[in-house]
């Protein structure tokens, strides 16, 4: 179970949140990249071993979207939202 630091509510149980996926690079211009690069962007989710920056939505709490760093090997939150 994760205790996620919400900037508004403070530390809250993971079950109050919805995972919003990893923070990704900006969407490329589909007309300016190859088909392979566009398909890669659309279908391949970054899944590094170690810290990954993720979006979380406090959907059962205050409604805030936040961004934090979670280590995929230890499940630890290594860096919370800047204002939490």
């Amino acid at each position, binding site marked *: 179970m994760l205790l996620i630091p919400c900037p*508004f*509510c403070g530390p*809250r*149980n993971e*079950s*109050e949140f919805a995972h919003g996926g990893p923070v990704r690079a900006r969407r490329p211009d589909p007309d300016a990249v190859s088909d392979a690069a566009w398909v890669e962007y659309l279908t391949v989710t970054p899944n590094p071993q170690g810290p990954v920056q993720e979006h979380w939505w406090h*959907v*059962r*709490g*205050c*409604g*805030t979207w936040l961004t934090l760093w979670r280590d995929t090997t230890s499940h630890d939150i290594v860096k919370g939202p800047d204002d939490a």
Partner: protein
Amino acid sequence: MRYDVTCKQAGLSALFDLKGPQADLWGWAGDHLPPMPARPNSLTRRGGRSLYHIGPRHLLLRTGIAEEEALERALGPAAAPPQISIVRISDTLTFFAVTGRDADQVMAIACPLDLHPAVFGADAVSHTEAFGLKAMVLRCEGGFECAVEQSHGDMMQDYLNRALT
């Protein structure tokens, strides 16, 4: 084991959802609101009205249902400036009062929030989850109030009944 708890579904309250910058909300409707709660997830009361600070730039105004129409006229949601939102939501939430000696134990089954008085004091109010449902929890005399979306009311009642036995 039976818990020494009474669970009672409360009647309707007049509820208004207020969103927007604090200065704009107070500029438009400040005369009709209790003071702004000092902290996130806390409430203030004045003259039978309660104001819940439940999210960033998000407040909930609650009062008796008899005052609903007059308060809506006073708040003037249709004419409010575009940077704020005032919406009557009285019918969208069902409140339950969970009171009695073991109220904290039943609420500990229901929701993951730390409800110890040192953390969740008399003026605390927060959205969280109760039995997996999105819920708003606050203290009341002798226990807690828990509000869920109206359509989940029967489910919540069922969950509470099961928790009590």
